[in-house]
């Protein structure tokens, strides 16, 4: 019964997938209310996961034959996935209505993707991880190529698929090596074996770690496994880009953290060194390349790569005894993910609104946005400032925690690279603000932009959250620290 209740949010998401898909198949009439059905499912799932958060007794145990971890960390990502489902559905409503006739498929894949996100975070077994990973990847490929008559969308999808298959294959190879070394696919069992492993077997574990990091690096869009992301972001329908940028990356981090701290704590020195390298490359490459981008979706893709680099700092600075304390790396990561969710979803809501209205994603077409829509320009400033990390927005709290964890763990060089990168990042985010506020409108096309209601909701909610996380950070930090009370180990 406890297990059933625990998995209820996932069950509801899955049920909504089946319903939306099934009802769409029945009869030939267009059903305009399908998006609302999807939204209802997502909202119920969110409501239940939030409600259970304060109420349910959970333990750090694995259930369903060791496949699912029932800990507070899973709970956090249940909420995360439901939030993604709700917001992406809202984001898509006005946009997809115009752009595509295939409403049923679209929303069922969004929900299926969100379901896969939470499933991935819940997995505590290599087999389960691979299944959830593939489920998420395949939903993402389909969503990316959803505009199949748009060559860019198709190209993005193919590219994403090819990269993804390769990464999955390498990850699977790594998993099989790990299974070979430990004779188990259960993360907890693996950790037990690895704790006392014969040193001569290390040569199997090392490549296993490297190969699995390729897979996780792909999912989190961490350099040098990021090449798919700018193209996929640019070609995908804009709400799908938001899904990839927030949901898919969040899931990647969830499983990266889970595997590293649950199964491989004995090898922290090794994966720590690798991830430090990935982090430095990601931050630097992401920020430097983002500067020269003309398309805002590509810019956000590269900035996402940079943010993945910042987030990895938290994992590097992880110390098992410090979970949930001040400047513990993992609470830094989870706060950062929340902040990033709000700011990035908000930014993509703005991008969607402008794409919807003007059909353009070029940064220069944001000129004079303050005149065309003060709401869009005003909220976009908040999101961009949060991504820079200016105090008063959530971004600052996230950066404070992550950089603080690096200093606490005495990774001074990493902290230094991170702050230098934060300054570089200031440049391209400000560039967007510059266009919105400083460049005059010179075209007659500069009429006012009317916002669809669903987009306004996303904008206002994410903006309020971004500001709240900066001004009244306590409840959010508390939420995260509670989520880290029970982590499978």
């Amino acid at each position, binding site marked *: 019964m406890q297990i059933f209740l625990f998995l209820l949010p996932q069950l509801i998401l899955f049920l909504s997938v089946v319903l939306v898909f099934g009802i769409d198949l029945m009869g030939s009439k267009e059903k305009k209310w399908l998006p609302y059905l999807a939204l209802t499912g997502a909202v119920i799932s969110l409501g239940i996961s939030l409600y259970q958060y304060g109420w349910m007794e959970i333990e750090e145990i694995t259930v369903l034959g060791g496949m699912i971890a029932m800990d507070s960390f899973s709970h956090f990502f249940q909420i995360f996935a439901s939030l993604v489902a709700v917001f992406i559905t809202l984001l898509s409503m006005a946009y997809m209505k115009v752009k595509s006739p295939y409403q049923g498929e679209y929303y069922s894949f969004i929900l299926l993707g969100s379901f896969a996100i939470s499933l991935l975070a819940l997995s505590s077994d290599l087999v389960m991880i691979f299944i959830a990973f593939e489920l998420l990847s395949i939903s993402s490929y389909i969503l990316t190529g959803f505009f199949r008559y748009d060559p860019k969308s198709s190209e993005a999808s193919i590219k994403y698929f090819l990269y993804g298959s390769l990464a999955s294959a390498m990850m699977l190879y790594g998993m099989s090596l790990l299974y070979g070394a430990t004779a188990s696919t259960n993360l907890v069992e693996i950790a037990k074996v690895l704790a006392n492993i014969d040193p001569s077997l290390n040569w199997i574990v090392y490549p296993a770690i490297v190969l699995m990091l390729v897979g996780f690096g792909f999912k989190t869009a961490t350099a040098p496994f990021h090449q798919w992301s700018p193209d996929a972001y640019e070609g995908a329908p804009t709400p799908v880009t938001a899904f990839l940028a927030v949901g898919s990356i969040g899931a990647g981090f969830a499983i990266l953290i889970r595997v590293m701290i649950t199964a491989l704590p004995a090898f922290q020195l090794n994966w720590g060194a690798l991830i430090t390298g990935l982090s430095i490359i990601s931050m630097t490459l992401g920020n430097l390349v983002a500067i020269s981008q003309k398309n805002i979706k590509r810019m956000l893709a590269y900035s996402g790569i940079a943010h993945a680099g910042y987030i990895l700092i938290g994992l590097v600075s992880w110390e098992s005894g410090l979970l949930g304390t001040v*400047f513990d790396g993992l609470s830094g990561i989870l706060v950062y993910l929340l902040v990033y969710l709000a700011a990035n979803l908000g930014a993509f809501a703005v991008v969607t609104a402008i794409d919807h209205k003007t059909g353009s994603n070029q940064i220069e077409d944001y000129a004079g946005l303050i005149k065309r829509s003060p709401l869009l320009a005003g909220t976009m400033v908040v999101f961009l400032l949060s991504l820079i990390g*200016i*105090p*008063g927005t959530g971004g600052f709290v996230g950066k404070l925690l992550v950089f603080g964890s690096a200093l606490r763990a005495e990774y001074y060089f990493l902290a230094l690279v991170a*702050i230098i990168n934060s*300054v570089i990042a200031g440049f391209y985010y400000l560039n967007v603000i*510059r266009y919105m506020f400083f460049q005059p409108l010179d075209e007659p096309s500069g009429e006012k932009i009317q916002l669809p209601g669903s987009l306004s909701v996303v904008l206002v909610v994410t903006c309020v959250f971004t500001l709240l996380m900066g001004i009244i950070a306590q409840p959010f*930090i508390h939420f995260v620290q509670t989520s880290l009370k029970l982590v499978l180990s």
Partner: protein
Amino acid sequence: MNFPVLSAITFVPLLISLIVLIIPKSKENLIRWSATILSLIPLALAIYVYFVVQADPGTMQFKEEYSWIPSLDVYYRMGADGLSAIMLVLTALLSTLCLYYSIYTIKDRVKEYYFLFLLLQVGMSGVFVSLDFIFFYVFWEIGLVPMYLLIGVWGGKRRIYASIKFFLYTLAGSMAMLLAIIAVYLETGTFDILKAAAAQPFAGNLTFAAVAFWAFFIGFAIKVPIFPFHTWLPDAHTEAPTTGSVILAGVLLKLGAYGLIRIVLPMFPEQFAYYSYEVPIIPILAVISIVYGALVCMAQWDLKRLIAYSSVSHMGYVTLGISAAAASLHVPGAGTEQAITSAIIGLNGASLQLFTHGIITGGLFFLVGMIYDRAHTRQIKDFGGLGAKMPYYYGIMMVTGFASLGLPGLAGFWSELFVFRGTFAAIPVFAMIGILGLVFTAAYILWKVIQHVFLGEFDQEKWDAVTHNAKITDMATFEKVTMWPLVILMVLIGLYPSLVTRLLNAVSTAMISNF
């Protein structure tokens, strides 16, 4: 007395900005006047604090402390001593004057302008009363964004370049400071500025202390700005709208120097003394700022840029005064009454210079703005003989210019006197080099500003040619109203510096005797 007066001073402008936000865009005059009149409230409160704050023993008063982010040990901590009180008055006064001046000069996007300006005031006032590092940092950075937008939207021709340069320079400095703040927290276990200073972080670890010291120092030095971190300043000041320049020079630069006095000096006295006396990097940078800044002024033909560089030079005195106070800890005979007295005098000079430079340079930027609004040029060579055409303006400019060059009887004199008195006692070589700056300052004020612009024959043809037949009118009433409070203060402090130094002296004494 439980009224949270410091919170009120800080957050009333935020409230006003929200009021501005809900007034419809079309009612421009309502926005202008309500913002200006309501901004008298923080001014009145600041003046109240100035009168009520106890000079002795120079400790923090009006304290407020609430838990803010308990998980991170971050508190909402405010407090003010004499120095904070003086800076609050400066901030509120200049803000109100700018808001008033803008009623007549800002025609475009009025609502956004007033909203951003008031937000800027929140950031500035907050810095002067924060006693918690994170809280301090939040205010420190909040001011950045409105200033960036003020320069970018309402600025001059190269505003986009100037605004982004300003933002990135300051961001780089604050990021270094953020790391130092976290390091201090990890060392001392508190974000409380006073407690952290009392704990003397990294006292046993010289390398770490030096790194943390320089991280803070550079963070603040960029804002002051101290050579070689000054290059953002001429661009930002020149391109900003008049009121933006006034606030930049009048208050924002002071934030950096205030940080040096309030945070760096008490927390790292040993390092500060070491780099002021044994390895005198800081006084060297200070005198370079002073002399180089003044020399560049001599070579400038753009009036606004000239005043901007004069800020580099004048803020050099502040750095010199602080480093002299620090050096006194390591001079032979440190600890004697004589050394302590000079240290206090040096620090008094530095903190007095914050206030006097604020009103004088604020005034100068207003004056430059007024002539630019008439002529639409700032080239000194385009002017000449204006004294006869604009006698009232000429008079006010004379007083402000003389105050700037340190004429006895006006405000600038005392701060420079104190700075050099403190410096001569501790590090005389730098006082001797630095005093060259005074000579050059007199030269560029008299030669460039007074002689080239006001004296000589007025040439109507040339004026018509360069200004496209602009009318020459003397100061309008609103311009007089803007300038008079500043001029009165320059004269008052010139005649009776005790108005300000009575409070500053107590703070300096308390600070120096703590070491």
